[in-house]
């Protein structure tokens, strides 16, 4: 049924439909709407779940780790500093192979305090062993959250569903909220592969010495390696039931493109518009939206980007001293390819600054007009006096 929903509530609805049993969270703008709605579901009985109002994000993640290890479907949500505070436990959740799903609302990190969108918070967690999926709109948020449980429970890795602050979390859009029966068919009750069980006492997470640690880490990598294939299968099922699919990446008008703009999050929607506008003026431009960041979909990217001589990666994030993070990953993915595609790196929209169709037009034109990519990322949209 179509409803007009905030992106945050698209998450909440998905969590309700997923029959999550334990939720634990700590408030941080702009994540609060997600957990407020879930709290209401829990208190009015719409959801048969326990909501643990912890005193920090660190404890929120600890609580869902405890819950997941005890064998229930568990969920949390956070953003920015909250995610940073969780860092230790992000490693723990994946190391313990727990299929936790977390909504992460991309928000900038202080100082200066900034509550607006910025991907650096989630991308800084890229090595924690979490699968990361970046969403473009409210429908995708809901659908991705449902898929995330399926994916997490199949490969026993936690999944982060990432959405932009305000542009998505606080933006109302029409969203098709599926009915419970169909969701139940897609997502059966959680059947944990292992759990704390007093009838079969095991010790989870003990000391693991150099003689055994590597094999266990290798198994996490193996699970990550399987994730794209599993995601595809999950999406196949999802598509058969709900008629929607998103893929690890989404290529838009790339086949004949001279320049492909690489984007993620809500910027993709704007980019889609910009590409359409440019096409009308005869520019051969395409867009590649990257939805799955971890594991990085290198195979899919190598199948698409080399079609164009130039690729412009637009990053709403920065790894200081290295530049745009998506660009880094794209370059690494293409390094194995024997083509001549040049990768241009742009940084835009940090801390909630708008990325508009004009921004993309500027990036397109700059890329088109620059024969070889500069060594460093180009910062787009800086105030004039600081640009020099």
């Amino acid at each position: 049924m179509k409803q007009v929903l905030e992106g945050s509530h698209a998450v909440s609805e998905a969590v309700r439909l997923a029959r999550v049993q334990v939720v634990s969270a700590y408030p941080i703008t702009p994540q609060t709407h997600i957990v407020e709605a879930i709290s209401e579901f829990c208190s009015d009985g719409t959801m048969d779940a326990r909501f643990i109002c912890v005193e920090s994000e660190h404890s929120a993640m600890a609580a869902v780790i405890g819950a997941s290890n005890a064998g229930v479907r568990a969920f949390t949500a956070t953003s920015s500093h909250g995610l940073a505070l969780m860092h230790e436990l992000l490693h723990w959740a994946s190391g313990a192979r727990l299929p936790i799903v977390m909504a992460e609302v991309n928000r900038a990190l202080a100082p200066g305090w900034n509550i607006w969108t910025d991907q650096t918070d989630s991308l800084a967690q890229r090595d924690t062993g979490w699968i990361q999926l970046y969403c473009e709109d409210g429908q995708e948020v809901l659908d991705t959250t449902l898929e995330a449980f399926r994916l997490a429970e199949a490969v026993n890795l936690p999944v982060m569903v990432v959405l932009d602050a305000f542009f998505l979390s606080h933006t109302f859009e029409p969203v098709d909220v599926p009915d419970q029966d169909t969701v139940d068919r897609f997502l059966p009750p959680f059947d944990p592969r292992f759990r704390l069980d007093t009838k079969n006492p095991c010790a989870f997470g003990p000391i693991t010495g150099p003689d055994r640690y590597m094999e266990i880490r290798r198994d996490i990598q193996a699970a990550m390696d399987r994730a794209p294939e599993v995601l595809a299968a999950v999406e196949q099922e999802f598509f058969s039931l709900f008629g929607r699919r998103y893929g690890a990446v989404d290529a838009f008008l790339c086949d004949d493109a001279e320049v492909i703009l690489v984007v993620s999050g809500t910027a993709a929607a704007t980019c889609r518009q910009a590409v359409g506008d440019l096409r009308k003026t005869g520019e051969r431009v395409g867009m590649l939206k990257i939805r799955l960041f971890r594991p990085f979909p290198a195979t899919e990217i190598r199948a698409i980007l080399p079609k164009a001589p130039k690729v412009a990666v637009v990053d709403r994030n920065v790894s200081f001293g290295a530049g745009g993070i998506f660009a880094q990953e794209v370059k690494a993915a293409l390094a194995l390819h024997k083509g001549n595609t040049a990768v241009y790196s742009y940084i835009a929209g940090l801390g909630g600054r708008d990325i508009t169709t004009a921004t993309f037009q500027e990036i397109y034109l700059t890329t088109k007009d620059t024969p070889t990519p500069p060594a460093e990322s180009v910062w787009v949209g800086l105030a004039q006096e600081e640009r020099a």
Partner: protein
Amino acid sequence: MRPLQVPEEEYLRRGHVGCAGCGAVIAMRFALKALGPDTVVVIPACCWGVIAGAYPQSSLDVPILHAAFATAGATASGVRAALDMRGEPDTTVMAWAGDGGTFDIGLQSLSGAVERDEDILYVCYDNEAYMNTGVQRSSSTPYGTRTTTTPREGWKRTRKKNIMETLAAHRIAYAATASIAYPEDMIRKFRKARDLKGHARFLHVFASCPTGWGVPSELTVKLARLAVRTNVFPLYEVENGVSYTLNTEGDLPVRAYLSPQGRFRHLSPEDIQDIQRMVDEDWRLLRAKAQGPPQRARLMA
């Protein structure tokens, strides 16, 4: 002498790697004898994280969830919620943390769990320093102690944090101190705590550490008893944060407890007097809160 009555059931396995004479091992042994097999143990980073066994071994006959250092209270809360959702509400969830994981890094998480009145039993086995990492001071380390981070003349000149009062201030349903030297009292308290379902419960267990305290391993239990008999570690219970019951009254000067220990060897007679004054002051405060006279510590054995 009436022999001590301790349940026969054994949930501690042989071959664990605790130091010879480890008080924390004795504490766990008694705790599980009291709680029985329907127990899940959450262990954050601490000595017990090691003693519980290296993969693929476990030294306990109940399920263990190892947890990050600061998270015992929260992780146990999550386990509790999950077991309730799974229809296993009777299983006892015991968080089992050292003093570092309780007094210091885990205090926030503990405070949160207690404030939420989570249906968990949180146990701090207190060996009064970061023993697992090589005897660094914690906020549980008592005045006068030498540790590797309060060495030589830099011995600790601040008092041990009063964790029981911290918990009492939360109006926790049940908080009690217990000592490995008084197994019957300890087992009674663990059972009382176990049976007080539906609420957060806290047990502060004195667990001597021969390795970290510079005492011969055979004195583990003796020292724990001396701590009680000198009022350094009085045995008492607090219900709802206000109703205090003293179980013991010491009958020996603190010197009897301090002098066998290497960590206090540098203390002058004046320093020991200072400590005696602090212990007396704490004892007076405690006495003032409790109703009725305590029993003599000696009779508890």
